[in-house]
């Protein structure tokens, strides 16, 4: 190596952001992205480890040192292409992956300073390539004549489609909504993931030859049996997500102005209710908003309510800050935007006015007891400790369950006790020719884990389609 090494900075190059005071009144993206100079400087911090732990930390094993080196050398489009060899949605992952618990957590630089800003650089490379029209389509393998149906155009389905189309199979995605993207469209807000970026990533798949049929609810308009029958598919991948909102079952939860996070975010993100009445879908705009839950979806809901004009937005979470499942960055951004965290409390009851709209929430204060099954300390009610908050909008963000629309209509598809599809590491279900992955297998998780499941399934489907068509059942390895 070179004799005189320049002093390596211990901290990462900061990424410019919209000022909190400005951004709470718009839906534009919060982090503004690196300039080419900033990206090169940050990428140059990478030690180019011989045994890169970061790659092991990535669910889809992106060649991280490889693309960081290309950025450091100013070869930005090549960097994007390097990522796309294993990840067909880099502009999305660069924005919404929990890098701090994956690639960046394993980065050696993190031992004596801050880890390389892998997520920011992934985003930079993908944005640079797209904005400068440098996207090159990889060559497809020779046509195999096999047809694969992908159910759900979310992260898992898009990944399966992206991988299998390159391997020469015909791929059709069936999507229930009128826009592809799944949770990327309906769940994650514009200010965290601009929808035109999702559209461009989907467009890339279309250009590769993936066919997307919108407004098709598999299990309703077409069954899985028909996909194999008259529709003529050789394999089916199910990636329908965990689209069943959970409620707490406390009194008053069906008052007007009490939403599931699914509904609130779908109205705002997919239907663009924030631009009502230019867009036709209305949404309740609260002055005093309570969001129940402590995950990323709760943060997204709270920050959306803030942008829709709320004066006070409270996060009601039953455990303490340490147990909050939201990403550190999301919590940080929420705090910057003045979201008020009411920890160790849970709603007991909502009361409404004569019009049936929610007006108050009565809360129970909690304290932490012994650890529960999840290893986190169980919240227990503090006897007699209650308080009341005035509220005119409540968003229940306590997770979701398995939506039965498809699974109920599909025979021979093994489900676990909670209604999720049973699948092994390769995504194989109990039904021959059917794979599944993403939240409908694992329960609510992350975009990148769904993509990882999609990758594994695509590989296995390819082997199945190119082999003798025999599915070897190995129920012992199925994840329950």
């Amino acid at each position: 190596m070179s004799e005189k090494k320049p002093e390596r900075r211990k901290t990462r190059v900061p990424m410019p952001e919209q000022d909190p005071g400005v951004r709470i009144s718009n839906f534009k993206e919060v982090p503004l992205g690196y300039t080419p100079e900033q990206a090169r400087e940050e990428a140059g911090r990478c030690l180019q480890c011989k045994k890169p732990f970061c790659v092991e930390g990535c669910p889809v094993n992106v060649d991280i040192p490889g693309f960081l080196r290309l950025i450091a050398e100013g070869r930005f489009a090549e960097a994007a292409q390097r990522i796309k060899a294993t990840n067909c949605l880099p502009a999305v992952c660069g924005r919404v992956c929990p890098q701090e618990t994956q690639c960046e957590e394993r980065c050696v630089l993190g031992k004596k300073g801050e880890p390389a800003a892998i997520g920011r650089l992934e985003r930079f490379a993908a944005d640079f390539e797209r904005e400068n029209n440098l996207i090159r389509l990889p060559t497809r393998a020779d046509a195999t004549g096999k047809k694969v149906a992908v159910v759900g155009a979310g992260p898992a389905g898009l990944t399966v489609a992206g991988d299998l189309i390159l391997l020469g199979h015909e791929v059709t995605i069936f999507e229930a909504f009128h826009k592809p993207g799944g949770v990327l469209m309906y769940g994650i807000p514009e200010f965290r993931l601009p929808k035109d970026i999702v559209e461009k990533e989907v467009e890339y798949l279309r250009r590769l030859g993936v066919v997307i049929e919108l407004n098709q609810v598999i299990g309703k308009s077409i069954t899985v049996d028909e996909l194999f029958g008259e529709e003529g598919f050789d394999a089916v991948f199910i990636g329908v997500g965990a689209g069943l909102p959970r409620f707490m079952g406390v009194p008053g939860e069906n008052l007007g102005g009490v939403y599931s996070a699914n509904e609130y975010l779908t109205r705002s993100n997919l239907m663009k209710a924030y631009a009502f009445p230019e867009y036709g879908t209305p949404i309740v705009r609260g002055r005093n908003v309570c969001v129940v839950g402590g995950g990323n979806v709760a943060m997204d809901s709270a920050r959306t309510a803030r942008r829709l004009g709320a004066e006070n937005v409270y996060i009601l979470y039953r455990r303490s800050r340490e147990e909050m499942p939201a990403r550190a960055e999301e919590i940080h951004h929420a705090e910057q935007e003045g979201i008020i965290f009411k920890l160790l409390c849970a709603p007991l009851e909502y009361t409404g006015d004569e019009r049936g709209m929610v007006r108050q929430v009565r809360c129970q204060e909690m304290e932490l007891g012994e650890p529960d099954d999840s290893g986190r300390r169980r919240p227990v009610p503090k006897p007699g400790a209650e308080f009341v908050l005035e509220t005119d909008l409540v968003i229940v963000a306590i997770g979701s369950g398995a939506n039965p629309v498809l699974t109920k209509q599909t025979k021979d598809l093994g489900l676990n006790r909670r209604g999720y599809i049973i699948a092994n590491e390769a995504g194989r279900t109990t039904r021959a020719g059917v794979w599944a992955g993403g939240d409908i297998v694992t329960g609510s998780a992350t975009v990148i884990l769904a993509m990882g499941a999609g990758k594994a399934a695509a590989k296995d489907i390819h082997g199945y389609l190119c082999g003798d068509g025999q599915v070897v059942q190995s129920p012992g390895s199925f994840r329950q």
Partner: protein
Amino acid sequence: MGKILHKAELAAKIFEYVVEAPRIARKAQPGHFVVVMANERSERVPLTIADFDRQRGTISLVLMVVGTSTMQLSALKEGETLYALIGPLGRPSEIEACDTVVMVAGGVGTAPVYPIARAYFDLGSRVISIQGSRTKDLLFWTDRLTSVSHQHIITTDDGSAGRKGLVTEPLRELLQADPAHRIACVYAIGPAVMMKACAKCTEPFGVKTVVSLNTVMVDGTGMCGGCRVELRGQTRFTCADGPEFDGHLVDWEKLLSRQKIYSQQEKCSLDRYVEQWKERHE
């Protein structure tokens, strides 16, 4: 898919569309609904499937103009295509042969009632239909409903056709005149207040009463929970568990207030839409 093959104005502000939808027509059953969008910016609107033709691959939808979204839909012409059409959604009607069934249709509710009445008629049940409307000019599909009914009663609020009064009056008389309990079931489909009144009317007689709820919805597949309804304290999703429910179990007050969540915003939106429409046409 979604192309409008035929459009007819059945009555003032009530339109029938015959829409090309082979996949939906193949699966459609009485009681099913679809979700439609007029254009990319529109709301998703649930509409009950009023008829279907599996051979021709079409479904019929009947739409009453009540706000911006329905007005946008009503502006679509023959040959144009719905931006989105999704279905069939919900659970179909549970139709079993029985002695007598009373079908109560209020206003635009005639459309969803028709295929259910036809199914009972085809099974050999005696079908008595009560078709109610504000006034004579708003009645539609009287011929169709008559063709699948052994007895057909019309009521209007102003007496301009049939009996003057509400649908609950002949309904009560039919039940009172049925000591042998031949009436196995009553269907009541129409505005929520009318369905509520019918359920209250039949409750003392202990006759099963099925209603088809028209709640607010977004996705229509059980994903958002916006359509939730309480049945004796149990929460159900209209889109996935319904849209038909036992009318005696429905918490009507909660349903009616949930239907009004957006009434102010809907009014603003409609005023704006009408204003813009006028500007464009001046």
